[in-house]
């Protein structure tokens, strides 16, 4: 019975990891860079939701979409202001693009964390719950109402994203750009708009994750650090840029941590992911589901 509970709770944690990791994966897929400010999109969502609901007294169900919008805006602005040089006309930057992206997104992360720390204050703030149902037993599983609702929303968002990328016109454009940027632009796809869209989506999902979890993990300026680190591990595990890979790796990590916390060590549960990451990099460097790259 305990094991079923652990397994389901692990899957739920994994689902929230996936909400973070898919955005990072999409950005890596389309621009081939890592966004080190990804955790700060999560933080923006957690704060937007918490502050709007607590300070303005708005209904949490209204604050949630606003947090999503704030994340989308943060993502889109990041792309407009900082990512354009990666592909718009700076051809001589070809060799330096990784360095530029690392430095600039890492500095953005420092900037946002310290700005929020200064403006809002360093004290953790608890977000209001969406529903007021205490912990209950669903068969063998113990769940609070908030967790159940949050899980439902997260599941719907990931399914929605998958359908959007698979079937919609814009989603198909995004996949085309990820496959071959030059080819896509020759076929008349606005690659800059596709990149902006991916950043907005990625920011929106991370912010949603932060908002949904804010009643459980209080909003604080550096609250995004651990979700971001987990999603870095997941993106490598899943094979850089593979969307199904990152979702499966998220669920695996969630379940692994859930069991490990009980059967191995609670204090060191956050280290399991790193251990797995090292093992995967040693024995299967292309990631669990990635393809081996080729170079000319």
């Amino acid at each position, binding site marked *: 019975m305990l094991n079923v509970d652990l397994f389901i709770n692990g899957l739920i944690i994994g689902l929230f990891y996936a909400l973070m990791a898919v955005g990072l994966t999409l950005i890596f897929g389309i621009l081939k860079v890592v966004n080190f400010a990804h955790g700060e999109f999560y933080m923006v969502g957690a704060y937007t939701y918490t502050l709007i609901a607590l300070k303005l007294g708005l209904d949490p169900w209204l604050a949630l979409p606003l947090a999503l919008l704030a994340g989308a805006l943060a993502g889109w602005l990041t792309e407009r202001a900082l990512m354009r040089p990666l592909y718009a006309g700076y051809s001589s930057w070809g060799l330096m693009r990784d360095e530029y992206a690392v430095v600039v997104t890492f500095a953005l992360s420092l900037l946002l964390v*310290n700005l929020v720390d200064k403006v809002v204050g360093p004290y953790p703030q608890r977000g209001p719950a969406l529903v007021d149902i205490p912990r209950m037993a669903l068969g063998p599983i113990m769940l609070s109402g908030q967790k159940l609702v949050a899980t439902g929303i997260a599941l719907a968002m990931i399914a929605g994203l998958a359908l959007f990328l698979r079937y919609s016109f814009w989603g198909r454009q995004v996949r085309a750009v990820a496959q071959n940027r030059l080819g896509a632009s020759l076929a008349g796809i606005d690659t800059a708009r596709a990149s902006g869209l991916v950043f907005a989506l990625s920011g929106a999902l991370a912010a949603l994750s932060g908002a949904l979890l804010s009643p459980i993990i209080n909003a604080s300026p550096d609250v995004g650090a651990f979700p971001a*680190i987990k999603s870095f591990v997941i993106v490598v595990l899943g094979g850089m840029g593979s969307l199904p890979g990152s979702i499966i790796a998220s669920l695996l990590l969630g379940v692994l941590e859930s069991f490990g916390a009980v059967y191995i060590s609670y204090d060191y549960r*956050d280290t399991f992911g790193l251990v797995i990451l090292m093992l995967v990099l040693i024995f299967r*460097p292309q990631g669990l589901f990635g393809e081996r790259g080729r170079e000319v």
Partner: protein
Amino acid sequence: MQGSARRMAVEFRLSLALIALIALAPIVVDNAYWQGVLIVSMYFALLAAGWNLLAGYTGQFSMAPACFAMIGAYTTGLLAYHWSIPPSLGIPASILAAGAIGAALGLIVMRLRGPYLALTTLSFAEIMRLVIGNSYGFTRGDLGLNVPGLFESRLAYYYVFVAVLAAAQAGLYLLLRSRAGLFLRAIRDDEVAAASRGVDVVFWKTAAFTLSTAVSGLAGALYAHFSQLVSPELGLVSQTGLVICMAVIGGIGGLIGPIAGALLVYVSSEMLREAGGIQLIVFALLVILIARFFREGLWGLARRALQGSDAA
């Protein structure tokens, strides 16, 4: 190639002049607080110079210079705390420990091209900090670990840091001037081309990372004996952020940029402290602007201004 060797020699001499200036500073700066600020600046200069060896010469980014300093600080600290091992053995042990962990991490990650090092070192840094903070029985966790001091006088620490910084700088210069330096620069310019000409890219990148982590370990060990208290906060990602800010603001890829950047950033951050914790906001903004618009940092701008006036 000739030009780049000459530029390196000029930058090396300038950086030695800067270190000499720091060495003379106590004549004017007789206040113990500001001497302490300069000592911490030199600690950061060591970290930034080590980080720059990797980032500026191999194009690989480590997100863990502060973490390896923390590893160095805890190595000598724990050896003294549990087994009363003197700093004369503890500090070399710190260099070895940080270098060995760096080598192991490098061997795993450097085989891969792409942003793997940055991703892995960032996870590694956060998790090391967590492990040290949680292992209360062994490391005294977040309470911090008391470390014995080396000297009574603050000036003695000051000149140890000056000497170590000068030695590290000379070591870097000799390394970069040697055949190994040529390989590193070849890797920076074009990894695939360098590999096709027979440069063992994986070996040299791992070697550079190992050296950079060993320098961080040394800096951390010295800092531990100077401050006499180490805590997991030493390895905070924001500390790494400060190191990267210093190197980028000073200018990546030269010999003087990181040192000048460390001095400039840390001393001005002490001055901004009174303005109330806005240092990192200012520096992060500055780094974004520099990365976006002036790739070579302040030193690059200064050099270009000087060359411009020469030509005129």
